């Protein structure tokens, strides 16, 4: 288990699941919030990853 992306995805999935359960009461809402949060985590990781790609200059 040393794939950075896999670990990032597993971490994001678990954190989004817990936050979705904490913040929403209805299962459908939880699913929606969790999916959006998970997508946000992965997308942010890609964006920041590429932004940091040229570093150190």
């Amino acid at each position, binding site marked *: 288990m040393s794939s950075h992306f896999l670990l990032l995805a597993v971490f994001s999935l678990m954190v989004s699941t*817990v936050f979705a359960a904490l913040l929403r009461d209805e299962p459908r809402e939880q699913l929606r919030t969790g999916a959006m949060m998970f997508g946000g985590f992965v997308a942010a990781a890609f964006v920041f990853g590429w932004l940091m790609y040229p570093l150190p200059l």
Partner: protein
Amino acid sequence: MTSKSTTVARARDESEPGTLALVCAAGWALPGAGHLWLGRRQKAIVFMTVLPIMFVIGLMLDGRIFPFDTREPLVALAAVADMGLGLPWLAARLAGAGEGTVTSVTYEYGNTFLIVAGLLNFLVILDAFDIAKGRK
């Protein structure tokens, strides 16, 4: 079928200081136990499943369960975060797990999983507290 007066009486019982402390202690000892106590079964199952799995993954990734060392503030803070998981944390400490392998490529990932699992459980405890107080 519970009557309105029974529900009100139960809500009053749950907001008693002693009961509140017990709900929080149960939630600390076993993630999700506070929610289970308060009848939020679906949420309890999610917390009881996800948080211990996160903790175990952290250990599998050679993460370290930090000792409480006040000379190093960041280590002490990490130790407090690790403690958030209650019994799984205690069991791991007693079993000698979580020594941490600094040279492992996944060491920092392991630490992140362990620390975040503990911190998330603190949030879960606060949520159970709010539910018991009738705020949610």
